[in-house]
C-alpha cells in the first residue's frame, strides 16, 4: 500500500522562466486541481517542471502534464520536465503518444425539414412494419398449405406443446378474469338499472356485452400479454444464439417449425379460451345477479335463452381466430427482429406486447363497424 503522501505543487514565476515543482503522490483525485493550476500558468515564458520529489504518478497526472506540453508548444514556448524517474518518464511518454486527437463530428444543423423528414421516416417505418407483418402472415399461410400437402412435415408435437402452453395454462387466469368481469358488470348494471325498475334487464346487459365483446376481447388481451411476449422471447433468444441460422443451414424452415405450430396453436386455443371466458363471465354475472338482485339462476338462464340471440355468440367467436393470427404474427415477427444483444430482446418483447394488444383493439373496433354495417 502506498503511504498517503499529500501532493504538493509550488509555482515560482521567475523573470525568464516559470518553474513548477511537484512533490508527493499525485493521483486521479487531485488532477482537477493540478489541471486548473497548470492552465493558469503564464504562457509568455519558457516552463520548467521539476518532478524529483514526486513519489507516485498516475496516468491522470501524466495526462495533465502532457496536455500542458501541447498547450505550451502551441504557444511557441518550451517545456522542460526534469527529475522524472524511469517509470514516470515511460508513463509520460506512453500517455503523450496516446492522447487522442478529437475528431468532433459536425453537429447537423437544425432545420424544419429535419422534423418533416423524421415524421416521414416514422410513417414509412410504420407502413413497412405493416407490410412485414403481412409478409409473416403470408409465410404462415404458405407453411400451412405446405403442411396440408405434406402432412408428414407437420410438427404435431410442437403444436400440441404450444396448445398446452398457450391454451391450457391460460385457462385459470382467463376464467378468473372473465368471472370477475361478469361480477362487475352485474353489480354496475344493477345499480343503474334499479333506478328505472328494470333490474331484470341486467341479464341482457351481461349476456350481450360479454358474449359480443368483452369475453373474447379481454381474453385476447390477456393472451396477447402472455403469449406474444413468450413467442418473442423464445424466438428472439433462438435468434440471438444463432439457432435460427443453424436451422436454415440444416434445411429446417423456421416458418414451418417455429411459426406454424405457434400461430396454429393460438388459432385453435383462442376460441376455446374465449368460450371458457364467456361461460365464466355469465356465471359471474349470474352469481352477482342472484346476490344483489335476487334473480335466481333458473330465472337468469330462462331470461338468457329467451332474450339473447345466438348471433351475439357468433359475432364474438368469429373474431377469435383473427385475434389469434394478429397475436401470433406480431409475436413471431418481433422475435425475428431481435439482434445479437440481450438489450434488443427485452425491447422487442415489450414492443411485441404493446403492438399485439393495440392491434387486437383496433381489429375489434373494425369488427364493430363491420357488424353494425351488416346489421348483426
Amino acid at each position, binding site marked *: 500500500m502506498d503511504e498517503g503522501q499529500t501532493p504538493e505543487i509550488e509555482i515560482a514565476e521567475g523573470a525568464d522562466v516559470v518553474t513548477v515543482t511537484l512533490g508527493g503522490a499525485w*493521483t*486521479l483525485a487531485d488532477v482537477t486541481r493540478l489541471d486548473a493550476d497548470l492552465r493558469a500558468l503564464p504562457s509568455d515564458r519558457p516552463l520548467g517542471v521539476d518532478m524529483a520529489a514526486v513519489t507516485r504518478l498516475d496516468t491522470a497526472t501524466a*495526462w495533465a502534464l502532457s496536455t500542458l506540453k501541447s498547450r505550451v508548444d502551441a504557444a511557441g514556448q518550451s517545456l522542460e520536465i526534469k527529475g522524472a524517474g524511469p*517509470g514516470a518518464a*515511460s508513463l509520460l511518454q*506512453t500517455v503523450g503518444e496516446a*492522447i487522442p*486527437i*478529437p475528431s468532433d463530428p459536425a453537429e447537423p444543423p437544425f432545420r424544419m425539414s429535419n422534423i418533416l423528414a423524421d415524421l416521414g421516416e416514422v410513417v414509412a417505418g410504420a407502413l413497412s412494419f405493416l407490410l412485414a407483418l403481412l409478409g409473416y402472415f403470408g409465410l404462415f399461410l404458405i407453411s400451412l398449405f405446405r403442411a396440408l400437402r405434406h402432412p408428414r412435415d407437420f410438427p404435431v408435437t410442437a403444436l400440441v406443446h404450444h396448445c398446452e402452453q398457450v391454451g391450457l395454462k391460460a385457462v385459470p387466469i382467463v376464467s378468473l378474469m372473465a368471472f370477475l368481469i361478469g361480477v362487475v358488470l352485474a353489480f354496475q348494471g344493477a345499480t343503474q338499472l334499479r333506478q328505472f325498475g328494470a333490474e331484470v334487464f341486467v341479464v341482457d346487459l351481461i349476456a350481450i356485452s360479454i358474449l359480443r365483446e368483452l369475453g373474447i376481447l379481454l381474453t385476447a388481451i390477456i393472451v396477447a400479454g402472455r403469449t406474444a411476449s413468450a413467442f418473442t422471447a423464445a424466438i428472439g433468444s433462438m435468434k440471438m444464439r444463432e439457432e435460427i441460422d443453424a436451422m436454415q443451414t440444416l434445411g429446417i424452415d423456421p416458418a414451418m417449425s417455429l411459426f406454424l405450430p405457434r400461430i396454429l396453436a393460438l388459432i385453435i386455443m383462442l376460441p376455446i379460451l374465449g368460450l371458457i371466458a364467456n361461460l365464466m363471465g355469465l356465471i359471474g354475472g349470474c352469481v352477482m345477479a342472484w346476490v344483489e338482485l335476487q334473480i335466481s339462476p333458473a330465472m337468469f338462464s330462462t331470461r338468457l335463452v329467451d332474450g339473447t340471440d345466438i348471433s351475439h355468440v357468433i359475432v364474438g367467436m368469429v373474431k377469435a381466430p383473427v385475434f389469434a393470427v394478429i397475436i401470433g404474427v406480431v409475436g413471431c415477427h418481433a422475435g425475428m427482429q431481435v439482434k445479437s444483444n*440481450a438489450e434488443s430482446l427485452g425491447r422487442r418483447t415489450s414492443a411485441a406486447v404493446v403492438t399485439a394488444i393495440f392491434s387486437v383493439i383496433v381489429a375489434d373496433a373494425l369488427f364493430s363497424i363491420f357488424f353494425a354495417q351488416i346489421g348483426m
Partner: protein
Amino acid sequence: MGAEGRDIVVSIRGLRNQFGSQVVHEDLDLDIYRGEILGVVGGSGTGKSVLLRTIVGLIRPAEGQVTVLGDDVLAETHDPGDEVEGRWGVMFQDGALFSSLTVRENVEVPMRTVEGLDPDIRRQLADLKISMVGLPYFAGDKYPSELSGGMRKRAGLARALALDPQIVFLDEPTAGLDPIGAADFDTLIRGLSRALGLTVFLVTHDLDTLHAVCDRIAVLADRKVLVTGTMEEMLTVDHPWVHEYFHGPRARAALEMRDAQSGLNGG
C-alpha cells in the same frame, strides 16, 4: 524459483472451492509478485476462472486465505468498497461492458467514484484510456453492441484501467480474436504492463500469449497449482498433462515461431 526477495501483491494459501459435492480447488497456494505478468493455464473445468473470481471476491471460497496488497479480502471486516479505490481492475471475457452506456461512459463509470473530479477532465481521461488500449477516438461514442468482439475486449480493458489499478485480472483476453488481433492484444498488454507498472493476472488458453507476454506461468491441475515457473521451466516438467500441454503440436508451433522471432531480433 529465485523470486524470494520480490514483493508479493497477491497471496493465496490453502484455498478450497467447492460447488455442491464437486471440489474445484483444494489446498491451493499461489503468489503473484509485483510487476509480473502471470499466466494461468489449465484444462477446461480446472477452475481458472473460478480462481480469478475468488481473488476479486466474486466467489467466496469454502476455506483458505486470500491476501491482496496486504489486505485479507475474505475477512469479515473487509469492505468491498475498498477495491473501488483503484487497486485492481478486472477485464471479463467479453468485456462485460454496460450495454446501455457508450464506451466512453463505461470507462467513466469507475472514475465517478472519485470525488471532486471535473466532468470535462473525466471525459478527456476516458478518451485517453480508450486511446491507450488502441481504440480509435470515435469508438468512445459507440455502444458496446456496435463494436466487434476485439474492440469490446479493448474497451473492457480500458474500463479496468480507468483508475490506474496496480493489478489487472484478465479472463481469456485473446479468446475469440483472430491471430493478428490476438498478437496485437498481447503487445498491448505487455506494453501497458511495462508503462504503467502493472501486475497482470492472466487466464488463458492461448500458447502464443503465454510465450509472448507472460513472465511466469502457473498450471492448474489436480485441483491445485501444480507448478509455477517460466516457459523454459515448464518445458522440463514431466507431469503428463503439463508435458502434453507444452509439448503438443500447437505448443511446438508456438515455440518455433517465438524462436524464429527472437532469432530475427537477436541476430
